C-alpha cells in the first residue's frame, strides 16, 4: 500500500444537534425545525 488514506469523520468532529444544523443552513424555522403552513403562519 502507498501512503496512508486518512480516516473520514462524517461529523467533521462537531456534535451538531438538529437546530445547529438548520441554523448553519440559515433556515430560521419555527422552533428550529418546524415548518408552518399558510394558516399556521397567518395565525402565528
Amino acid at each position, binding site marked *: 500500500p502507498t501512503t496512508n488514506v486518512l480516516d473520514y469523520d462524517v461529523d467533521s468532529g462537531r456534535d451538531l444537534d438538529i437546530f445547529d444544523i438548520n441554523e448553519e443552513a440559515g433556515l430560521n*424555522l419555527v422552533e428550529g425545525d418546524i415548518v408552518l403552513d399558510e394558516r399556521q403562519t397567518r395565525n402565528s
Partner: protein
Amino acid sequence: IIGDEYRWPKTIPYYMEDDLEINAKGVILKAFEQYRLKTCIDFKPWSGEANYISIFKGGGCFSSVGNRRVGKQSLSIGSNCDRIATIEHEFLHALGFWHEQSRADRDDYVNIMWDRISEGKEHNFNTYNDNTSSSLGVPYDYGSMMHYSKNAFRNGTEPTIVTKIPAFSDVIGQRMEFSDSDLLKLHRLYNCTQGSTFLDSCDFERENICGMIQGQGDKADWVRVAKADGGPNTDYSNMGKCTGSGYFMHFSTGTANTGDTALLESRLLYPKRGYQCLQFFYYNSAGPSDSLKIHVREYDNANPNGKLRFIKTIDGSPQDLWQLHHVSLDVKKKFRVVFQGTKEGSGTFAGGQSLDDINLSETTCPEFIWRVKNFSHVMENTPTNTSIFSPPFTSKEGYTFQMELYPSGKAGSPGELSAYAHLVAREGDTGQIWPCPWKQITMMLMDQHPHIQKRMSNQRSVTTDPNMKATDSDRFFWDDPRKVGVEVTHTDGSKYFRGPGSGTAVYLTHLRAKSRDFIKGGDAIFLLTMEDVSHLTVTQPLPSTTQQPVTTAVTTTVTTAPINLCLSVQCLNNGVCMVDEGKAACRCVVGDDWWYYGDSCQYKGSIMDKTTLALASSLSVLGVMLLVTAVSVICLKKKYKKHANNSSVVMENISA
C-alpha cells in the same frame, strides 16, 4: 397538537425522493423499524393515497407538525441529519408532536434564561396553551427525544435552559432513541395496543415467567431461581442489585442424569413477517459437553400439537459470565420457541445452564457482537487519541470489517467515544468488488435493558459509497484495503490489511455512555451489522395510479395526453394533464375537505369557503334588512313629526 384532523392513519405512506443520501435512506428504514418495534405506527411506500410524506434532502432537518392534509407533505433529512434519533424526531413532529419544552406547563420544570438566547430566536421558546397542545397525561419528560438541549439557541457560553431539578440538566436534549414517555404519549395519541414487530420479552421477574411452560416428554425441568450452585450468583436483568428480585431460569445439568433433557417453551406466538430474531443472555456453568439447543414448535392443521423443528445449537464452552446470543428464525406459522438443555456428559457437579432477558421480535438480528470488558476502566484509562479495535468480522455480504473505538475520544474530542468502521482484506481474499459498493455498516452501543422495547441503544451508520474519493487524493476511499490500507498484525500473529476508517469523533459522550444500561456488569456490548443497501440507489417507483388511464364519471375514456397536446397546458398544484375529447385539460387534486379547481387548478376551494360564503350572504341579507328598517323608521318618524306640527298650529285668526 390537539385535533383529529392532524392525525395520520397508523400506516403512513412515504416516498423517498431521489436526492436523499443513500446512507440517509438506510437510516430512515432503520428508524421505521424502531417505530414498528416500539409503537403501532407503520410505514409503507406511497401507493397513491391522498396524503403521504415525501422525504427529501433539504437544507437541514425539518418537518411540519401533524398531518397537514396537503397531499405531498415534505419532511427534510438533509446533510448530517442521517442519525436515527434525528429522523425519529422529525417523524414525531409529522405525527403531531411539538418540542417537549413547549408544553403549557413547561415553566413548572425548567427555567428559560431569556437573556442568554440569541437575538431574534426568543420565539423558539414559546409555549402552546393547553387548548392547542396536550401532554396526554404524561409528566414532563426530561429524557424526551423532543426536548431542546440545554444550550439551544444560546448567544454565548451559558445554557439557555436550566432544569429546576439539577440532576436533569444534562439529560435534556438526548438524541439517542425514544424515551419511555415519548412512546407512552405516542401510544395514547394513536391508541396503540402493541408494536407490530414485537413478539415477546421475558426477564423472569414474575412467577408466571411470561407464560413460558415446561415442555412435555423431558426428564428434567428448568427452575426459576435467583442464584444457582456453580453460577451464576445473580440474574442478568438486575445483576442482583435488588433483594427479593433478580430471577432467571436454570437447568442444573450437574445434578441431572446423563441424557436427561429439560425443555422450556415460550407461549404461543403468531408471526406476521416470516422472520424473527431471538435474543437472550445465557450463562453456561454446565459440563463442557452439555448442550443447549434452540427449536421451534410449529402448529398447523397437520400438526395440531405442534411439530418440533431444530434451529441451532448454542456453542461455546462454559464461561463465568452472562453472554448475549442471537438466533435468527424463519417461522411463518403459529409457534413456540423451545430451549432444550441436555446433559451429555456424566458425573455430578455444581452448575448448569441459565437463561435471562429473552426477547423475540420480527426484526433481523445484528450480525456480530463485540464485548468490551471493564468498559468504565477502559474509558477512564485510555489516553485520548488511542484506539482499540474489534476483531475482524466477515459479513454475509462477503466483506470483512472492523470497528475502531477511541474510548477517550479522538484528538479534539475529549470526553467522547469516537467510533469508526474500517474494511479489512487478507492477502489472497477474492470475490469482492472494489471499491466496495453500497454496504451500510452500523455500530450500535447496546442499552442492555432487559426489555427490547425500552432500550435506548446508540447507533451510527456509514455507507460505502464506491464513488467516494479519499481526502486530497484521487484514490477511492472504499477501495481494496490492500491498496489503500495499512498492514496489521493480528493478536494471533496473522497479517491483514485495514482500510481507512469512516465514522464520527462524537459517537457518544462519556456522560451518556455511563447512563442507563450501556455498561452492565462492567462490560459494554457493541452490535455490528453490514447490510447491502444497493437497492436504495434505485428510484422509488411512483404509484401506478398516476401513470395508468383514468376513466371519469361521464363514461368517456380519457387517456394520458400525448406529449404535444399537454405541452401547451400547465396544471398547477399537482394537477395532471389529460386529453378529454381531443382537448388537453387539467385534472385537479382533491382532498377530504378541500379541492383545487379552475382551468389549470389554480384556485382552491374548501368546505370552509362554502361555510364562509353562506355566512357572508346571510349577514348581507341581515344588513340589508337592518338598512330598510332604519330607513322606514326614519321616514315614519319624519311623517309623524310633520303631522304633529300641523296639529299644533295656534289658531289665532282662523276665523278671520
